[in-house]
């Protein structure tokens, strides 16, 4: 691996073409600049040799004689590209079996015949895209908590903590919903990331989702995801007491490193009583499974009915019991 340029203030890696660090704003060092392009110092048109001047319409120096435009080093904002692929480890049949088992496992409020009557409409192998990030963060926080409260229910607290984030997964997928990503994230295996997508032995074609955001937009989403994770960790581990509100965090992110990965999944569409539902099985580990399920209204009414009956029974029995015990 080649030596990568790193921001001298926050130690986040800089990418080719970065004029400034995306995290802390410091200007890139000279050696990082040279990666991009040699700048043009001669104010003479390269095509015809006439003097040139900058043209606001073109946004670049423009030769008025031959109309050629000079190229300048500017902030590059390319669309993100996938860097690696996590391998498919779950075969099509294993994914199907996992789905069938999952449908059987569902709770009381699901229709009893779900596993038998759910009809599979389609099975697709896809690679969905996500950013996987490592970062350090010095997080300062304040919050109200019930700990140490006087007359009010709340007392103010503050603190600072150094946190390290490893493999924070930020979805870049438009195909998968946020809750599906949350369910699959724990089963993503990042150890065996390959340079090429897996080829399935049974010949199932794998659909590749591509990143469709630009670098600047990607960084905004990644940074806000890390800030959210930091706030979550602070709420969970650092605010004292059992209840809290008004949790504020301010963080210094450092060494933010991002990998742009494609992650495997099996996407199922199944039909139950004329409605389509979707389930997703992680392609790396079949335990990762999530999806929409039909809800059994019949069973819900059954429970409500039972509760009402029990209530009525208690009301009628109560006087009898009272008489029995007291009388």
């Amino acid at each position, binding site marked *: 691996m080649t030596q990568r340029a790193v921001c001298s203030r926050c130690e986040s890696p800089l990418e080719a073409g970065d004029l400034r660090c995306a995290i802390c704003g410091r200007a890139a060092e000279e050696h990082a600049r040279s990666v991009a392009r040699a700048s*043009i110092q001669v104010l003479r048109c390269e095509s015809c040799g006439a003097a040139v001047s900058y043209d*606001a319409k073109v*946004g670049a120096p423009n030769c008025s004689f031959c109309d050629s435009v000079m190229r300048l080093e*500017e*902030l590059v904002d390319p669309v993100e590209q996938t860097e690696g692929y996590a391998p498919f480890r779950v075969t099509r049949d294993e994914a199907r079996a996992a789905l069938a088992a999952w449908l059987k496992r569902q709770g009381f409020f699901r229709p009893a015949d779900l596993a038998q009557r759910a009809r599979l409409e389609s099975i697709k192998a896809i690679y969905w895209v996500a950013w996987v990030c490592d970062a350090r963060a010095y997080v300062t926080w304040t919050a109200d908590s019930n700990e140490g409260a006087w007359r009010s229910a709340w007392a103010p607290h503050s603190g600072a903590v150094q946190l390290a984030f490893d493999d924070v997964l930020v979805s870049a997928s438009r195909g998968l919903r946020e809750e599906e990503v949350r369910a699959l994230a724990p089963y993503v295996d990042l150890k065996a990331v390959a340079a090429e997508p897996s080829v399935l032995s049974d010949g199932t074609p794998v659909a590749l989702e591509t990143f469709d955001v630009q670098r600047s937009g990607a960084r905004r989403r990644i940074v806000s995801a890390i800030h959210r994770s930091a706030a979550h960790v602070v709420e969970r581990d650092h605010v004292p007491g059992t209840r809290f509100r008004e949790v*504020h965090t301010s963080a210094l992110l450092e060494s933010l490193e991002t990998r742009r990965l494609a992650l495997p999944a099996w996407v199922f569409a199944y039909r139950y009583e004329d409605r389509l539902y979707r389930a997703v099985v992680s392609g790396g580990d079949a335990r990762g499974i999530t999806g929409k399920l039909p809800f059994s209204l019949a069973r819900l009414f059954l429970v409500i009915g039972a509760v009402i009956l029990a209530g009525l029974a208690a009301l009628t029995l109560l006087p009898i019991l009272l008489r029995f015990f007291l009388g």
Partner: protein
Amino acid sequence: METEQLEIRCDDCGATLTMPAHRFAAVCPFCASPSVVDRPAGESSARREPPDFILGFVIDRAEAERRVKAWIGRSRFFAPSALKQAKVHSVEGIYLPVWLYGCIAHSQYEARIGEDYTTTESYTTTDSKGRTVHRTRTVTKTEWRELSGTHASYVLDVLVTASKGLDNAELETIEPFDLRAMRRYDPAIVSGWAAEEATLSRDEGHELARSEALEFIEDRIEDFLPGDSSSLQHFDSRLSSEDTDLVLLPIWVFAARYGPNAESLRILINGQTGEVQGKVPRSIVKIVAGSLLGLLAVALIFLLGLFALGVIGSFL
């Protein structure tokens, strides 16, 4: 081989500009003062540092002129008539030097945090029959508690002027600039355009930027405090890893001056977004005339009233 550059310095507003020789102007494009001194760009440009970044013009001359005309058309009644008739073709595109500042801020703060609670209190009042009665009611009260702690954040993209010709407050009127379109400085971009030299030193820019950064941090800490209400008592920031880069920003300037002693008028157009701002001098003649007219109208109404009373009185 480079297009010949001339340097001019305005004795009035202190701006120093390098201009292409063919665009040499006898008045300062910044304040329209005629007291400009020209000298060939040479020894002075050798010792100054080159800018780090530059934002290119997006708004071209025709668009800038159109916007200035529209702005003057909308300007107030009391503006001098000469302004409304002013020819706008003297609008000048200038690269304005600014300092772009950033740092890491570690702050210690002390604050008072108000936590609300409700309590019942008894009070005495008189009822509808005039008797004194004791009642209770629920009231919300606030208990104030001390909170001290630390706040850490990056301060990014603070822009302060590097030009004596244009103060920071005036720069702020045409902000913001979208810094994502920034480029590495390249002399090719300023070719054919006037560019002002940084006349405020890096240290002066640093001081200015620091105070702006502290204001920013203060706002951030105020937002950061918990509680139903809060007041920041004191904070102390340590700014480290500070950077000050020199950036050229694109602005169109329309400067005009009416009479040798008149205050100069300046309209600025953000060369990236097209935002127009300016201070319009008020014409003394128009203000006096306007006030006199107003007085006259009041007097007329008063006389009319007297007359009407007299007429009614004569009937009674």
